[in-house]
């Protein structure tokens, strides 16, 4: 890669020396690249004149790849080697992947991130994403430099605002692997706000509702005098247009009473479902017909009303994060001046309607929901590359979407950096030793809002070495957590009493080390195929056993809080659950667990009540 030329910030070089940087929207369904040319952000088209590149990569036996429309055309014929919606797997373990049962891929559950076995070997989602980025990069270089050799100064790649550290790191790694100088990871709703705000000279509080192919984000921004300040963000990193397709797909399969489908038929019907969903945006009904591999025909008609009914819960799932974001921003609905709609899935009329009802105003649809993110990213890339012209004096202040914490005694999380803190942000925490002469300690960093480590995302385990030996409790190890403008975490540590810098060994729980990135293309790991069904069953059995034990303990500890009748009802459900534990259907166990949950709900409430009163009573006694 060419060395960067550096000029004083704020001074823009002469036009002929302008460094070209691009904005990339690496989407679940489609990806785009855009660039600022002559002061205007434009989407760069490929040689076929297309701006949208389907985010699909097909691997061939000889290691060759096809990206985009070419891969899309053959996806139903070669589903196992044609990877769609890879963004859903970025920075994710197999247990986080939804709809595994309907995915045609040969998943490899490797530590760190799930991988996919193809004819060209085992591929990490980072590698698959890098193929998409490479295609966008050559599209951009061709479009910007033509036959003349040229290098991009850098790229801004967008990520869902609700992406956690592991997903962001994976995206940045993919950029590096594609040979891009990643200037910044930019949150998608923020990118949209830049494009919208600069275009409309908007001032005030705006909400950006971004429902993409696989992710949902809601961001609340304050726009004032050229400052874009994100006040709060929330979302669901596993909810998007894909889920609407999947819901319709399930409906078709149920309706037609189809036997378990082959990978090819599954992909075929998923593609048909997606097309039908898009058609229903502007039509009352659609006919889905297909011929399966067996020769069996599928023919179903679905109305817009039926489709809206079956997907209403998905739309409702976007409103809870929206309420949370407003609450975190300390704002009421009435204070929101406009709602900017982003992402292809916001075209669905019932999504528009739900958002309009929630905010009590018609959402803003005057920007192309597919392109606005890439355009905003291009505008930022241009400024970051040093081409800050007059009128580019705006400032962007974004936040961290999920709290960062560390594991403490008993598997509990202590928050170190709260969600929605403005970036960059740092927090120092002091630790001490437990034993005399202790020279090392380990720190487990997690991300999420829940109280238990097990419910949060494990980001990394750090080992501190080289602590000077002292008596227990004497060492003062100051650990600093720094989150940069990309939302990425770095950790450093120092022993305060002696000033010794402790060495840190980082072991990311998800994401890749630099060495792994280097090795990635050379190696293909060979892991045994994980039997997904068996794993799900095992999980339910463990969950069931945990449940039995917990309820038995509660009944013993707080027996006085349950009436004999209630106790009898709970015990009956417990016995029923115990009987299901040896069965082979995970759903049976799951529903037995749910019945126990329901039967013990009032009891659990009374127990909580008692615990809270105890805690408060303790305080009172002390003060009297």
């Amino acid at each position, binding site marked *: 890669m060419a060395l960067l030329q550096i000029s004083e*910030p704020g001074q823009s070089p002469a036009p002929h020396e302008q460094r070209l940087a691009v904005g990339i929207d690496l989407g679940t369904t489609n990806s785009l690249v855009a660039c600022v040319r002559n002061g205007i952000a434009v989407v760069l088209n490929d040689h076929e004149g297309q701006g949208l590149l389907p985010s699909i990569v097909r691997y061939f036996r000889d290691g060759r790849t096809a990206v985009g429309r070419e891969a899309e055309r053959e996806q139903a014929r070669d589903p196992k080697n044609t990877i769609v919606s890879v963004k859903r797997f970025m920075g994710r373990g197999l247990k986080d992947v939804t709809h595994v049962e309907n995915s045609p891929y040969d998943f490899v559950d490797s530590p760190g991130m799930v991988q996919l076995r193809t004819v060209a070997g085992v591929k990490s989602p980072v590698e698959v994403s890098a193929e998409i980025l490479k295609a966008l990069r050559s599209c951009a270089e061709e479009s910007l430099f033509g036959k003349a050799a040229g290098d991009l*100064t850098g790229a801004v790649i967008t990520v869902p605002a609700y992406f956690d550290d592991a997903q962001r790191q994976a995206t940045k790694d993919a950029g590096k692997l594609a040979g891009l100088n990643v*200037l*910044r990871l930019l949150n998608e709703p923020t990118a949209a706000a830049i494009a919208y705000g600069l275009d409309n000279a908007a001032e005030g509080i705006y909400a950006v509702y971004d429902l993409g192919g696989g992710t949902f984000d809601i961001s609340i921004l304050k726009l004032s005098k050229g400052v874009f300040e994100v006040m709060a963000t929330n979302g669901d990193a596993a909810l998007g247009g894909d889920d609407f397709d999947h819901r319709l797909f399930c409906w078709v399969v149920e309706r037609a009473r189809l036997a378990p489908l082959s990978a090819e038929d599954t992909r075929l019907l998923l593609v048909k479902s997606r097309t039908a969903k898009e058609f229903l945006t502007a039509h009352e009904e659609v006919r889905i017909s297909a011929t399966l591999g067996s020769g069996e025909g599928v023919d179903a008609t679905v109305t817009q009303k039926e489709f809206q009914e079956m997907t209403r819960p998905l739309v409702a799932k976007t409103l809870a994060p929206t*309420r*949370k974001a407003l609450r975190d921003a300390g704002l009421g609905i009435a204070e929101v001046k406009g709602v900017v709609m982003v992402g292809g899935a916001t075209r669905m009329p019932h999504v528009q309607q739900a958002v309009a009802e929630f905010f009590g105003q018609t959402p803003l649809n005057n920007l192309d929901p597919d392109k606005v993110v890439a355009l905003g990213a291009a505008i930022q890339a241009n400024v970051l590359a040093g081409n800050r012209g007059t009128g580019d004096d705006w400032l962007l202040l974004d936040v961290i979407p999920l709290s960062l914490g560390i594991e403490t005694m008993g598997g509990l999380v202590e928050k170190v950096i709260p969600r929605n803190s403005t970036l960059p942000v740092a927090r120092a925490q002091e630790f001490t030793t437990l034993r005399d002469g202790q020279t090392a300690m380990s720190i487990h960093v997690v991300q999420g809002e829940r109280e238990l480590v097990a419910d949060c995302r494990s980001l990394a385990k750090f080992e501190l070495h080289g602590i000077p030996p002292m008596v227990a409790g004497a060492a003062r190890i100051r650990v600093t957590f720094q989150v940069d403008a990309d939302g990425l975490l770095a950790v450093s540590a120092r022993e305060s009493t002696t000033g010794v810098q402790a060495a840190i060994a980082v072991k990311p729980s998800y994401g890749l080390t630099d060495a792994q990135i280097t090795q990635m293309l050379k190696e293909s790991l060979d892991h045994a195929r994980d039997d997904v069904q068996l794993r799900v069953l095992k999980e339910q059995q463990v969950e069931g056993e945990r449940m039995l034990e917990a309820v038995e303990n509660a009944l013993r500890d707080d027996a006085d809080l349950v009436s004999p009748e209630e106790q009898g009802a709970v015990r009956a459900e417990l016995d029923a659950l115990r009987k299901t534990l040896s069965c082979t259907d995970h759903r049976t166990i799951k529903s037995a667990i749910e019945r126990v949950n329901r039967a013990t709900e009032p009891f659990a409430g009374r127990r909580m009540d008692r615990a809270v009163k105890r805690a*408060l009573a303790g305080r009172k006694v002390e003060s009297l």
Partner: protein
Amino acid sequence: MNLNENHFQIFGVPARFEIDLEGLETRYHELQREVHPDRFASASQAEQRVSMQLATRVNEAYQTLKSPLRRAGYLLQLHGVDPEFETNTAMPAEFLADQMEKRERLEKAAAASDWERLIALSSELRVEQDSLFARIQRQLEAPDWNEAAATLRQLKFLEKFGEDIGAAEEAMDS
């Protein structure tokens, strides 16, 4: 701007509780326009590092000064007074009894998924907080550090209650 300055010095405002929030925000934006990492994305690594440190510092100072609770705590800290959040749990009995009663109301409202009662609790809380902020302002300007620390402990208690109302709202949402 220098890293050894205190938050008030960074923002060029007098170190007292009373503050002009609008002016503070304007100054915040001015400072970030100068130091934010986006200004240095094409600069050397060393410059990028310094930019990140300064921008982090400005954010920390702004968040501290913007929040009346944190601003009061910071003033005490500058005067060497430890508010003893962890160790000193002494509170007036009347205050505690009132809090007990409010907590009970919160639990009942949450159990009944009663939005109206939750909102009523929130607005009562705000009134109570405002009166304590007025009190702590008098105490800090007197100055009467120990009295101010006692008020701050109560405010911290109320903040936690506010968080619990938020958690109840969230639970009712899902």
